[in-house]
């Protein structure tokens, strides 16, 4: 899953937008999906986000995210559809369960929302370096630098954790521990003891990082220390206007 969320290098217009613009735009699209009740509008937004992905050269990744969300959505759809009882009954099932027309529409809306709301955020992460996002949060939104630093460090550590975890699991598997058990509780019981060595080695790593950061002046840093500039260009204004337009449209319809 980690591979689906990290930065994809590129020079597309999305890559070049101000990180703040991308943040605003992705949240706007996300919000629009929740404001509207129209299936068609959500599908329209989904298409627009996929078009953006294509422009940024990350469409294959967006489709992969969509297909893994799709599997979960089928499950959600089935559960949802059985819960809605009002509306015109389309089908009678055993155990007194029914499928109604409003059940179908509601469940469809639910999974469309679920899938479409995730994509803009994933796309934003694909075309924005976390460090740029953090820098702009510090510079423009006056987030304390230490928070931004913690955020970027945490995200940087996710793949390291995953790597370490799979390393530990491999050695344990070699010793005969069966992690591939289908029993969820058994699996948790097997994995839990591994968290301790993982935590210890991670803490040791972050401690080294903390010392190294301190010796390179971390505590001296002020808000305007950042070297990179994030100017707002015409494209940014247009992108934000687009986001506003989408919100207004879905609010009206």
């Amino acid at each position, binding site marked *: 899953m980690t591979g689906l969320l990290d930065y994809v290098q590129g020079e597309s217009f999305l890559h070049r937008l101000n990180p703040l613009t991308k943040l605003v735009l992705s949240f706007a699209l996300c919000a629009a999906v929740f404001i509207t009740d129209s299936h068609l509008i959500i599908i329209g937004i989904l298409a627009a986000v996929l078009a953006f992905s294509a422009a940024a050269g990350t469409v294959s990744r967006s489709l992969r995210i969509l297909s893994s969300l799709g599997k979960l959505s089928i499950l959600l759809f089935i559960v949802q559809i059985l819960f809605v009882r009002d509306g015109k009954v389309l089908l009678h099932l055993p155990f007194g369960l029914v499928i109604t027309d409003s059940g179908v529409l509601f469940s469809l809306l639910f999974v469309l929302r679920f899938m479409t709301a995730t994509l803009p955020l994933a796309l934003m992460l694909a075309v924005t370096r976390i*460090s740029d996002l953090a820098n702009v949060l510090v510079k423009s939104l006056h987030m304390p630098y230490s928070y931004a630093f913690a955020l970027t460090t945490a995200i940087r550590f996710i793949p390291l954790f995953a790597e370490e975890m799979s390393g530990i699991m491999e050695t344990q598997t070699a010793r005969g521990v069966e992690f591939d058990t289908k029993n969820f509780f058994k699996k948790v019981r097997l994995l839990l003891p591994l968290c301790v060595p993982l935590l210890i080695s991670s803490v040791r790593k972050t401690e080294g990082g903390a*010392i*190294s950061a301190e010796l*390179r002046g971390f505590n001296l840093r002020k808000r305007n220390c950042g070297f990179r500039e994030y100017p707002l260009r015409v494209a940014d204004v247009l992108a934000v206007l687009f986001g506003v337009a989408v919100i207004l449209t879905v609010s009206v319809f």
Partner: protein
Amino acid sequence: MIKIQGLTFTYKDGARPALAGLELDIRDGEFVGIIGSCGAGKSTLTYALNGVVPHHYTGDMYGSVTVEGLDTVESSPEEISRYVGSVFQDVDGQMVSAVVEDEVLFGMENFGVPRSEIESRLEQALAEAGISELRHRATSTLSGGQKQKVAIAAIIALRPKIIVLDEPTGELDPRSSRRVFDTLRELNENHGITIVVVEQKIMLLCEYVKRLLLMDGGRVVLDGAVGDVLRQTEVFETAGVNIPRVATLARELTKLGYYSGATPTGLAQAETMMREVLGNG
């Protein structure tokens, strides 16, 4: 200028002193190598030089450490790090950024390097560390050797007077290790930066440094020009450090009266010694 007098330091939860009455003077522009067995106190000494001891790792400290006129107890690690750059053993742990360029920018931004200078310093530091082509790479995709050079570049960019390195080639193959030492030599000779480097690979170290220290039990037990230090093979045995075979050979040849020159510290000198010995015999 580094001056350490009677330094004894015991970690807060340490059973015995990690440093025990250590004395050391290092002048500007020196290239000093430190060897010693595991637990001899080498890392602790590097911590004492950059203020990590006693500011980050606390404990009982006696004696004094002065770096460029700053008393390390009274000065903050930030003040000290304006003069002393540190490269640590754990290459992954000391990275703070996801991209090479950001890693080198980090310190410069923090210390408030003027905006107009940042770009040129960045390029220069990457070039000196020999990694200009890695500028836009993600740090997570680099090899151990490349990461170590990034760590060095990040320090070079800060233009410290002194660079302290703790086993910088620990995870590197022989070829990358040499490249790191080539970089250090360059910095020392062309920029006059004082280099203090802890290293296990004794032959490699002896080839590059001018002055060699042997540590044992929290003290400096040998200190001098490389050739002079290598001659004292008994002290090395007591300290549990394997001496290069060529130095042992030189000692035996000297004992037997075949050789009377300096202890070889590199391949070329070893060849000269053998030619001399074989020419005589």
